[in-house]
């Protein structure tokens, strides 16, 4: 009887360890693949290489008089007052998407001056700027 109990316990601990290792492995792997980095237009200009498969977020201001609209897409320029990035976007815009306002666009870089965005983020609060944006601007 005793032997059986010890065996059960050993099996139990073994299973827990295995699942722990598996969990950690999977979580780390998934994090590597799915983390979205935040950049400013200047960061992008300074990039050495562009990973097409890596999703990024770009933050800055929507440049004045830069929004162009057609039936399907919206084009605009994100600026951090040092460098600019052209963004193309097909999707729904938040309520506070305006020229001269802060914006965060998420998507894939085509090259150093062009972003294919699939999401535009805004915050609830109108006097609020995403901390990421101010941080990116501060670093320039």
């Amino acid at each position, binding site marked *: *009887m005793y032997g059986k*109990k010890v065996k*059960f316990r050993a099996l139990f601990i073994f299973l827990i360890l295995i*699942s722990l290792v598996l*969990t950690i492995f*999977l*979580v780390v792997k*998934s*994090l590597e*693949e*799915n*983390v*979205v*980095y*935040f950049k400013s237009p200047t960061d992008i200009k300074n990039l050495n290489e562009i990973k097409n498969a890596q*999703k990024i*977020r770009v933050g800055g201001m929507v440049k004045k008089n830069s*929004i162009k*609209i*057609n*039936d*399907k*897409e*919206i084009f605009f320029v994100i600026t951090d007052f040092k460098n600019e990035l052209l963004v193309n976007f*097909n*999707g*729904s*815009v*938040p*309520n*506070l*998407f305006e*020229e001269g306002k802060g914006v965060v666009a998420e998507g894939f870089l085509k090259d150093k001056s062009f972003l294919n965005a699939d999401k535009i*983020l805004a*915050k*609830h*609060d*109108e*006097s*609020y700027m*995403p*901390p*990421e944006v101010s*941080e*990116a601007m501060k670093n320039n």
Partner: protein
Amino acid sequence: MSNYLGNYSLYIALIASVYLIFKSYLDANSENKYLDKNFILITSIQTIMITVSFFSLVAAFVISDFSNETVFNNSHTLKPLFYKVSGTWGNHEGSLLLWLFVLSIFLFIFLLNSRSQDTKYKLLTILFQQVIISGFLVFILLTSNPFKTLYPIPSEGLGLNPILQDPALAIHPPILYLGYVGTSIIFSASLASMISGNIGDKWARHIKKWVLVSWVFLTIGILLGSIWAYYELGWGGFWFWDPVENVSLMPWFCLTALLHTVIVLQKRNSFKEWTIILSITTFSLSMSGTFLVRSGILNSIHTFANDPSRGLFILSFLFILILMSILIFFFNQNKISNAAKENFILSKETAILVNNWFMMFFLSVVLVGTIYPIFLEVLNGSKISVGPPFYHNLLIPFLIPFLIFMSFGPSLKWIKDKLKKFNYNILIIFLVSLLISYVILTKTENSFLLSIPLIVLSIYLLLVTIKDFFVSRSSISQKISHFGFSLLITSILLNGLFSNEFNSNMKVGDERIFNENVVKLKEVNVTDVDNYKSLKASFEVTNKNSSFALYPEVRIYQQPLTITSEADIKTTLFSDNFLVFNILKDDGYYNVRYQYKPLMIWIWISTIFIGFGGLLSVIRKNEQKY
């Protein structure tokens, strides 16, 4: 007047709290047989004082007393009465006062409900609960006093944020807090039972009620938050894996695990340490939720005013509590007697362990996704965010084994079960679910490989849980909750697989074709309503046989300038048609998003089933057969 009343009541409550801490500590160390009558008296006084304080804040909101800074910042005379009242807890100071209010009420109910319990255990529960209460009192009085006064008295308040005027959001925080605070009782009680050594089946029966109550409130609270996001935010989804949402989900996973474990403790008198660990973790996660949301450490789409000194206080308080519980756990571990028990692999105990493993796995994933960005920012300064794909990649594959386990785990017997002879019922159910899935899957060209086993299994589980209503011996509340859960999983999966949307920029008169429907923007009417300008669009959706109209709206508020989009949603039992639009630059274009979301309403209904099952279990006195 109400400011002074509210403020001084809190000080009296603090004095009561300090007295109770000392008194319960001293009495717990003496060998008193009975609870001193003073305890009930002083606790009643404290509860009354905190109640008075809370309602004086409510009163200040109702009468729009702008000499109170909290009211000034968060209310407005033009607000409807309902939102004036709900404004009380719609802000940092008020929500903490609500926390405190619920804390003291719960302790009072606990005292009334635990007459038959051991005196030392009761004293220790009071002690730990009063430590938490005093912590909140000090926090409120030092950093977040809701009764600060303003002079000169402003004539009008600032709080007219239209996004926050929503019935679901108004009752969401109190319900969620009832869940959070319920876990504090579980926390205090499990530490107390550890020290007094009364942990066992009797204690499990007593604490199970609290676990169930907290779990029901937490479930409904999360549901309400999700409903608000869907109907009010206009993004066309019900869950965004936003950090603020995640922090309410984490204690839910933990509490669900505890809910199952406590049954093992009650029936089999084992899993004692694990129950304690889960109780401590659940409460720590509820507190961390408050910390993460209120300190502004998170980068969330939901913004809250933030103040580092508040964050520092909650963080320190949280760590003192965790440290205290770890110390108590390690130094009283030897008091737990785990009588040697036989364990067999095929048994209900194992099934519940497996359930716990899954809950802990889901919890770890959400926890890592939520705090990893904070850690990375501190460690190397990079700014990242963790998006939905992270959660989906990790959670969805594990749903397959989870669904399999859930289909047979609950029907296993305690101690030891045998592999049954081949069961024709099961086979028939499985074949039927294969057939249904086949019909469903032929209607879509979904290339997602995992979707086939997921749909088959979720429908299978759904049918099994329905079958259980007729054959299984388990309790009706468990059947309802498990049925609700399988319905939820099925609805979410089908919703996720079959939802589609189109985004477009349209001018008045434009037509777009979507899902064999023609969507036409007929006109946009601009009108002035009370305090905002309304742009009401009229869309017509036509398919072969029928047509319907949708009227989404954009509201432009002045003071402060706020633009909100009101989606128009056509709900049927089978699907939601969701349409929202937004203004772009003044050249006639409107940004339009149209979404087709199947089975949306079933996500809400199934969650209500889950909660209802739990509620039934609380109400029914003799829920012994499980």
